[in-house]
């Protein structure tokens, strides 16, 4: 099955799931759970938390898969972003409840290149993000990655770096402007 076909099938299963077809869950689950569990586990650093988040994600898909628009988004991108957002949400809640921030959750994601079978999301052009991040200053790059993977806000980043909030904001914002220019140049 080509990547194109896999995508079309997943999109169709998502639409069925949103229409209330419970049988579509298994198909969506089989196609995406390893990918999503990996994401949740990396962000939360805890299997139990990752399992709970994954369950929440699939129940959300079932309740609102109707908001998925095949014309607008690739299904796996849509689901992966949803899983990431839920995991970050949970991580932040956890962080405010207890002092124990899992260090793993905060670790920098090194320059890993995705393996072929993990590359569900990548489309030509979209993968420019890897290249474009490399064009930033290292402090900008690590700030953006720590926010994206570790749920750290501007205030968190400033505190961690021991610099004023305003300094951190302008640093990251310069990076965002550059990132935007670079991403657009590839389209």
């Amino acid at each position, binding site marked *: 099955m080509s990547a194109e076909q896999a995508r079309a099938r997943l999109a169709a299963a998502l639409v069925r*799931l*949103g229409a*209330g*077809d*419970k049988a579509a*869950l*298994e198909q969506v*689950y089989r196609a995406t*759970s*390893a990918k999503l*569990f*990996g*994401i949740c586990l*990396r962000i939360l650093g805890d299997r139990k938390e*990752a*399992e709970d988040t*994954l*369950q929440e994600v*699939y*129940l959300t898909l*079932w*309740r*609102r898969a*109707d908001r998925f628009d095949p014309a607008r*988004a*690739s299904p796996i*991108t849509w689901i992966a*972003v949803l899983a*990431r*957002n839920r995991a*970050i*949400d949970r991580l*932040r*809640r956890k962080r405010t409840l207890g002092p124990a921030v899992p260090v793993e959750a905060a670790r920098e*994601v090194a320059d890993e*290149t*995705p393996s072929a079978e*993990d*590359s*569900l*999301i*990548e*489309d030509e052009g*979209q*993968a*420019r*993000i*890897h290249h474009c991040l490399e064009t930033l200053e290292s402090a900008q790059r690590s700030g*953006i*990655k720590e*926010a*994206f*993977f570790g749920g*750290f*806000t*501007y205030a968190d980043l400033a505190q961690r770096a021991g610099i004023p909030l305003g300094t951190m904001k302008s640093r990251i914002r310069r990076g*965002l*402007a550059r*990132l*935007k220019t670079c991403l657009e140049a590839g389209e």
Partner: protein
Amino acid sequence: MTPDDRLAAEFAIGLLEGQDLLDARGRRASDPAFAKAVDWWEARLAPLLDTIPAVVPPEYLLARISAAMADTPDGGAEVVRLRQRVRFWQRGAAAGAIAASAALAALVLTPQNRTPADVPVRAASAPLVASIPIGDSALRLGVTYLPDRKELLVSASGLASDGVHDHELWLVPDGGGALRSLGVVQPGRERRVSLDPATAALIHDGSAMVLTREPLGGKPPAADAGPVVAEGSFDRV
């Protein structure tokens, strides 16, 4: 880079918190151009998630999820029904009706199997509480309802004002009538609100609330309510 585009990037990456996050979340729900900008960033950032290796979840998880779905009989179909209800509600509602998507989001939280007969009369004097998460932030709006005094305590201790907006809390009546205002939230403060008996009578375990963003002072009488930025429901203590 326009300020909106920058905000979209900050929102998609997760850099915002507090009032900024609230505003961005509200904008995404109410402003299609901004929503599109957020989608653009999410799609461009998503390949970063490909750097994470896949991990097969434990066997039992699929069964657990199916069981959780079975506990909620209708799922997707329920959303369709709710949408019809919202349309009906919109047709009937005069000034003060809020946008369909926002109303739908709020109504989805309302347990559908709850009929007025299920409402626990016995526990009428026990306080009800709600902890309403605000956006993706760690902030929560704490709401406690004291039935015997018909009083509401609204605690917004973590919130800061942006000086331009206020947030107003609303009760979503079960039958889908017009939203009932529970007052304007005061950032950084705990506020005590006395409810009129008609509004108080509508509150029970499971009642849904939404928080909307409004001009300073709350929703102007002639205007529609602003975008829904958070939602939650009452629970027994």
